[in-house]
């Protein structure tokens, strides 16, 4: 269809030129010392469950939280620092389910069996209570989508105030296959504007903030 391409572009190029307006100033909000508070408040407003954890203690905290829920399977990425840390702390725990093969080999497990999935976050955005996920070869995309519970571990030091700050430098550094901003569990209000969670993705989002 290169003819279509040519015709569309030549029509656009033949159109009268128009001035490109200058970008007027826009200052997105900043929170200073209140950044973490804002982040937590917005996450909770978005129906996420938030826990404050330590770098050394989070695997044990998570163990207790998941035991209390009676959770039987946790999808994790063994090739990431986070996954390695979890495997090291939990040993050969029967709940751990590694995402270590292509989706084609794991589909039934991923689609039906995994009760939870755990991922790291590249960062967080205080303004909107948003987690930035950067899926990779080691940490696949579906971990944060298919299981009914998604657990994210985010370092407090990686928080920024707003999205404009967050995207600075992304283009230069190279984009991943699928960068993701996640602000809460999957939800819908398509039926009479009534909020319902977990329509397709996770019904629950648990955030562990490492300080």
């Amino acid at each position, binding site marked *: *269809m*290169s003819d*279509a391409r040519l015709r*569309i*572009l030549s*029509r656009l*190029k033949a*159109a*009268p*030129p*128009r*001035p*490109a*307006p*200058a*970008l*007027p*100033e*826009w200052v997105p909000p900043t929170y200073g010392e209140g950044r973490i508070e804002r982040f937590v408040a*917005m996450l909770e407003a*978005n129906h996420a469950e938030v826990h404050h954890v330590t770098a050394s203690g989070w695997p044990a905290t998570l163990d207790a939280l998941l035991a209390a829920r009676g959770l039987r399977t946790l999808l994790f990425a063994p090739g990431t620092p986070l996954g390695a840390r979890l495997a090291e702390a939990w040993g050969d725990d029967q709940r751990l389910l590694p995402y270590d*093969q*292509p*989706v084609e080999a794991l*589909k039934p497990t991923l*689609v*039906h069996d995994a009760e939870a999935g755990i991922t790291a976050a590249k960062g967080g955005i205080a303004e*909107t*209570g*948003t987690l930035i996920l950067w899926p*990779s070869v080691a940490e*696949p*995309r*579906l971990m944060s*989508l298919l299981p009914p519970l998604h657990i994210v571990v985010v370092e407090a030091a990686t928080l920024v105030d707003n*999205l*404009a700050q967050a*995207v600075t430098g992304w*283009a230069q550094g190279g*984009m991943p*296959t*699928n*960068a*993701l*901003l996640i*602000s809460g569990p*999957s*939800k*819908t*209000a*398509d*039926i*009479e*504007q*009534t909020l*319902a969670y*977990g*329509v*397709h*993705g996770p019904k629950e989002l648990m955030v562990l903030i490492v300080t």
Partner: protein
Amino acid sequence: MEPDPDFAGRAHVALGDSKLRANFRRAMDGLMAKRKAQFPDPAAWAQLRARGAAVRARSLARLPELLEKLEAKCRANGIQVHWAETPAEGNSIVLDILKRHQARTVIKGKSMVTEEMHLNAHLEANGIEAVETDLGEYIIQLAHQAPSHIVMPCIHMNKGEIATLFEANIPGQPYTEDVDALTAAARRVLRERFAAADAGISGANFLVAETGTVVLIENEGNGRMSTTLPPLHIAVTGIEKVVESLDDVPPLLALLPRSATGQPITTYVNMISSPRREGEKDGPTEVHLVLLDNGRSRVYGDLELADTLRCIRCGACMNHCPVYTRVGGHTYNFVYPGPIGKILTPQIEGLDCAGDQPHASTLCGACAEVCPVKIPLTDILVRLRQEGVRPTSGAVKGGGANRSAVEALVWRGWRAMYASPLLYRLATRALALVGNWLPAGLPMLKEWTSVRVKPRFAAKSLHQLAKEKGIKDE
């Protein structure tokens, strides 16, 4: 109910439908209040909106260049780019890709451009099942209806209607009006469809030229499913969606969900820049981007009308429109309803087949006031009304189609009367004498007097009264 060929006829039917009126009233009141709560500070709103409008205007000013840049960047990333001048071309591009992959079932994320192309019907006619997976789209697909709102497609239905629909269409599903139970039923059915699908089709909210990225926002996760789980992903969108850089995205994302549904941000913002890379364990191995023109490049040629292309499809204009909120989306009979539809549809489809759309407005300006990218909707409505009777250029397809010889004659007479003092005086005298005897049901008066009392003409005109009081003409 008789099908009505015209907007006014359909509007009368809709106005008499108390259930429809109640469904829209409830939904629109909620959306307006939620949007308002998101922009509490008028100064901050003005600043953000000016930025958003400028981002879109700048992108459009460099549209051909940015499209070429986007294409080159996408190709370098491994995304295959296709161009379609017409919906038919777009449909066959999508069908060809699917056939090459021997795809039988396709899962779809919400996409207004594929609605514009009537893609589902085309695929089904060719033996490919297309399953809508956005909950609202899934519901209207079960009901064999078209979306009545661009953001919330089944907003015209209440939960009782949806409960009946699910009971009839989902095996083993009992009648329930419990929204959580209805949502869970859809999850159960659609999860199987996601897992078994051969391909996923989505729309796009923004295309970033700098990085070759498709930005897709959603709350449900069905967009992520459609673009991640099947081995093939086809994104379909309009050529106007491109922006220059990633830095352009934050102000638009700060405007779009807040204007649309009163959310600070959607649950998911997907930024897709390539197919599955070497060593990655999931994601489609092929990603295609189909860019649809369908009249947009013609709209682009007119400097005033081109502002239509700034639209980011938030739907705030329809939520605030006194016409849309009363008659609902189906009354418009085209894919894009409400104020944006009233200016977009005639430009895409032509004034000869959608010429009544620019008239379905009171010109109150509510749409232009809430538009996050400052589209001068009322100015464009007035311009399209003019194009309908007296085309200024070839800018709009079907220009002049609304011209009526009788109306033209009346206006010519009106002009002659107002240009000549003698004719004017004669006409006002004549009206004072016979005006009150004219029956309200006369062809020229009937439309106007059907909802108003016919005014009484004064026995003496202002000129006469002034003259009697000794006031002289200047």
